[in-house]
């Protein structure tokens, strides 16, 4: 445990000196929080906007709580779109940190002396993974907390507030978010084994955001709605994917493999 803590501290000390990493950890969540809050401020309590005017998908009309009026439903619809985008935070941050942390170490040739210490490869992998996952999860939680407080201040209707911050988003942030962060780190570990430039590793690892973008556009175009069932199913699928990815990353993150096969 002490060794994992040493790795964690070292990673944070080193990686947060990198402006790219700092930008993605601080500004990305802030931007993705500011946009939906800005929308809420912009729309205000304008109930004049009807559901039909907003051209919302039909399924969404059915999904909108009956206690809400058309304009309020539109706000819920708009915020739902951005909540999907908000899920980029637990993907992008760990992918960036892990890319710089592993490929940076690889190109700096500091992995060999590190592997020559009595640390086990699992301790090293856990340390590096936590160093990427923890800031991502904390940034996601913090940004969501800012969004909750902000929307509570902006939205005067309690029914609307509860519709905005409902169980599916809590489940998404608290469960799906950390699972996504873990997935991004494991993908980064695998990408890092083949790439020597942290920026290239970061860009390739960003492939993990594609499913989120697919969900975003799927919902915008009315193909499906992100409801509680969808979020729950995502959590289950992600758990399975994470298990497979962890297994693959552990196999790849072995002393001999790192020193002889990582190119």
């Amino acid at each position, binding site marked *: 445990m*002490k060794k994992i803590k040493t790795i964690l501290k070292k990673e944070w*000390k*080193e990686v947060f000196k990198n402006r790219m990493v700092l930008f993605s950890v601080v500004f990305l969540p802030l931007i993705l929080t500011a946009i939906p809050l800005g929308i809420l401020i912009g729309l205000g309590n304008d109930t004049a906007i009807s559901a039909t005017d907003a051209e919302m998908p039909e399924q969404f009309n059915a999904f909108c709580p009956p206690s809400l009026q058309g304009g309020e439903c539109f706000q819920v619809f708009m915020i739902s779109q951005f909540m999907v985008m908000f899920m980029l935070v637990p993907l992008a941050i760990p992918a960036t940190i892990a890319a710089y942390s592993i490929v940076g170490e690889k190109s*700096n040739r500091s992995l060999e002396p590190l592997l*020559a210490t009595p640390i086990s490869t699992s301790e090293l992998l856990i340390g590096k993974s936590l160093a990427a996952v923890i800031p991502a999860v904390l940034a996601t939680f913090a940004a969501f907390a800012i969004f909750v407080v902000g929307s509570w201040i902006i939205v005067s209707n309690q029914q609307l507030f509860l519709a905005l911050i409902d169980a599916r988003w809590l489940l998404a942030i608290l469960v799906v978010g950390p699972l996504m962060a873990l997935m991004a780190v494991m993908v980064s570990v695998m990408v890092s084994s083949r790439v020597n430039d942290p920026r290239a590793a970061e860009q390739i690892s960003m492939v993990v955001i594609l499913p989120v973008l697919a969900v975003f556009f799927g919902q915008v175009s009315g193909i499906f709605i992100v409801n509680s069932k969808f979020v729950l199913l995502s959590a289950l699928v992600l758990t399975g994917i994470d298990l497979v990815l962890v297994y693959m990353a552990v196999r790849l993150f072995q002393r001999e493999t790192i020193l002889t096969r990582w190119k």
Partner: protein
Amino acid sequence: MIQTENLTKQFHNMLAVDHLTINIKEGEVFGFLGPNGAGKTTTVRMLTALIGPSQGTARVGGYQLGKDDKLIRQSVGLLTETPGLYDNLSAEYNLQIYADLYGVKNPKGQVEKYLRMLGLWERRFDSAGTFSKGMKQKLAIARALLHEPPMLFLDEPTAGIDPEAARLVRDFITELRKEGRTIFLCTHNLDEADHLCDRIGVFKTRLLVMDTPEQLRKQLFGRKIVFHLNKMEPSLAKNVEKLPFIHEVQAIENKLVITLDDPETHNPEIVRQLVGLGIDIQFIGELRHSLEDVYFQLVRSA
């Protein structure tokens, strides 16, 4: 201290290390010489429990390779070919990380001890990235020593650093030797190996030869004694060559270069022979072959 028996490493179709059998004694400085790609780094990686052998066995510090890998890593210090420092972090923190990973009991004290010993204490708060090559190398050496390992593996410790820093590193290795540490030194600097090493192994996938530098010279070239004479006669070389203990005689200007095994015993007889032939001997000296001659002779014939 380090024993290997038929230690072999095969990477797919490439044989990197072929049945290496060596026995390095405690407190010995062992020079491991060989051209690039000879398998030296692979050998070091096996002996420091970084990669496993394909065949054969090894004991490092009494620990069995493959079974006690963590204990082996705890008891050896490794200086890799490149320093591999964290350039954004201070020199002190670079060492602090390793002191923690090795579980050093007094980490701050040990970090200070080696930073002072290697002349880096005043620069301890500076990022390692701002250091010169020589300073980086010294910091990497300090890192390898923090946990006071009885065995040290040094891979090209003076490569790419200026002569002054190289000398400091060599002096430091001499100090470590005095402390009784066993040192496995991979180097391309043959002069360095000649001065620092008790024994030398010349390696090119397999061990070509292993002995003291002096014995290697003797085995390969014999010992050459140069007799500076007041004059040279055409028949002189032939007359001297008749002596039974002489392997070869070369006449070069006013000098006779005589190859023999035991000059301490046979030189007086050569002197008597030459004086008997009416020759005055002005000076006698030994022609020493450099380790470079030994190395090239071995590697080229391998």
